[in-house]
């Protein structure tokens, strides 16, 4: 079931939560809405679910070419998973999962069917044997899996997850997102999830929708948005970045005593520009090589981690960060205040001062 959102806006009082947003989610996709808090990602998800109405007169919404904009949430056929689980505390795990089947008015399945279906779902979310427990007897990760099973019980056409792992601790979160990815590969139900964690989005989603201030900044595959960010915001939001101010001159950009050719797809930029370099794209040498490089002093070294993080200050007092491999670090003998030569391997240039 595809989702088609066209020109949707949503205002809360004077705050514009969504500003003319259009998005298409194809059938069977797993799409992440990624953005900082207040970017409108949750509002968009809730509008898809029907828990929130778009501004009157704005926008259209289709599920597989069927207009659902004015359809109540209970008739949309969506499964919704909340950040804080929203399990029914007075019901056992079994009853929670069975809820959607028990409240059906037309074609209510019989007891045997419900039982079979619920146990099958509990197996799917790896909670066999927990059917008789109450939510307060489960861990956060288990609760969220119950919530997922409950949402899947009604066989939703669309599965919507609002920061599903946001309330869990880091380790459980990692396990669950890998597991969600596998589950989606099995079920192929069109899914949209909201997150502010770029690692989560990059790892789990087929496509990422980066949002900021009620607008969509970029839509693309994880590779696209990570390696080819369309805007400065996306560049900043997906990982650490070093920022320089520079000027474009012909085919090169000049910044901090460096003059580098810059990517061809940005050739329309003229004049003041901003240059971005990811820390792992900053190479360090102890000797001045033949290539253009910046002279810098080492300020700090963090070597605990898969990569070594080196904080540097250039001769023009510009701060920047480099990430190098442990092996390379071992060959260099870097200490605070030692002089090094740094060179950006890949740069991205955006217009503006």
């Amino acid at each position: 079931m595809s989702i088609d959102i066209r020109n949707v806006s949503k205002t809360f009082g004077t705050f514009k939560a969504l500003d003319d947003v259009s998005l298409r989610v194809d059938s069977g996709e797993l799409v992440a809405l990624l953005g900082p808090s207040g970017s409108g990602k949750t509002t968009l998800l809730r509008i898809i679910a029907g828990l929130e109405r778009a501004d009157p007169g704005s926008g259209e919404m289709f599920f597989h070419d069927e207009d659902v904009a004015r359809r109540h949430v209970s008739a949309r056929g969506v499964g919704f998973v909340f950040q804080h689980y929203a399990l029914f505390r007075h019901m056992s795990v079994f009853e929670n999962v069975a809820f959607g089947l028990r409240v059906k008015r037309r074609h209510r399945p019989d007891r045997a069917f419900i039982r079979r279906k619920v146990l099958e779902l509990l197996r799917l979310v790896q909670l066999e044997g927990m059917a008789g427990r109450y939510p307060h007897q489960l861990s956060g990760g288990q609760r969220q899996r119950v919530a997922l099973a409950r949402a899947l019980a009604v066989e939703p056409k669309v599965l919507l997850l609002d920061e599903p792992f946001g309330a869990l601790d880091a380790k459980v979160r990692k396990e669950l997102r890998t597991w969600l990815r596998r589950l989606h590969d099995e079920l192929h139900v069109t899914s949209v999830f909201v997150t502010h964690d770029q690692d989560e989005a990059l790892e789990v989603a087929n496509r990422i929708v980066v949002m900021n201030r009620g607008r969509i900044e970029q839509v693309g595959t994880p590779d696209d948005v990570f390696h080819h960010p369309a805007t400065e915001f996306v560049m900043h939001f997906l990982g650490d970045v070093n920022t320089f101010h520079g000027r474009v001159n012909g085919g090169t950009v000049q910044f901090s005593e460096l003059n580098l050719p810059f990517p061809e797809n940005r050739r329309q930029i003229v004049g003041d520009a901003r240059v971005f370099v990811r820390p792992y794209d900053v190479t360090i040498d102890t000797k001045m090589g033949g290539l253009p490089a910046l002279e810098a002093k080492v300020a700090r070294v963090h070597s605990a981690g898969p990569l070594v993080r080196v904080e540097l200050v250039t001769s023009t007092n510009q701060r920047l960060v480099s990430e190098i491999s442990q092996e390379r670090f071992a060959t260099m003998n870097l200490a605070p205040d030692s002089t090094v030569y740094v060179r950006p391997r890949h740069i991205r240039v955006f217009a503006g001062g």
Partner: protein
Amino acid sequence: MVNGLHWKRPSVLPGFGLCMGFMLLYMGLLVLIPLGGLVLFTATRLSAAELWDRAIADPRVLASYRLSFGASLIAATLNAGFGLVVAWVLVRYTFPGKRLVDAMVDLPFALPTAVSGIALTTLYAHTGWIGRWFDPLGIQVAYAWPGIVIALTLIGMPFVVRTVQPALEDLEPELEEAAASLGATRWQTFRRVILPAVLPALLTGFAMALARAVGEFGSVYFIAGNMPYRTEIAPLLILIRLEQFDYVGATAIGVVMLVVAFALLLVINLLQWWSRRFQT
């Protein structure tokens, strides 16, 4: 300390001994000694057979129990229903004058019960503003049992509202959204999600309203008409016995009421315990 029986567990909260002692003193002075004295007074002056004859088998006393507990149960049930609605409105909706209404809920607590009794009597008498509409239908409100129920409902109302209100406020809106997304109608959501969640609080409110109604005297005194066998509540009968200097007869009725009330509260507490089984 004896193994297996720990009065006191190590705790970061100081003052267990002091607080426990204070609680015992407080409960003793206010509850245990007066009520124990009542039982002792009766037990030393009446044999079991006499107690039976005077405080249970006497048809006039029996009728007063039936009226007292019956009307109280009806009133507490009405309060559970309407109190839930009032709490719901106060929690879920915003409307002009909401704070005023919220404050008014407590008025029955503050008002001398005689005042509310007289006011209700004036209103529901067969010539009163409301009573006159019931009179042609042959329904007598004041000076009959419906009047008693109304008086008891009034004085018990705050209990249900004030216990259910916080429970409703604690209910996350996500629960209702979850139920709706799973296809439940508003009614199904109320029946299966909201009501079970507030049931423990509702039962507490019910128990308190019931207890208050059983013990109520002032407002009923004015609206009941106090006809023996028909509109005479047990607390009034105790007063009548006292006025006849029949102290033993008065305390005997008191003891029976005490036992029945305690049994009722115990049952409600068990129900509450059961309704909270899903909580930590």
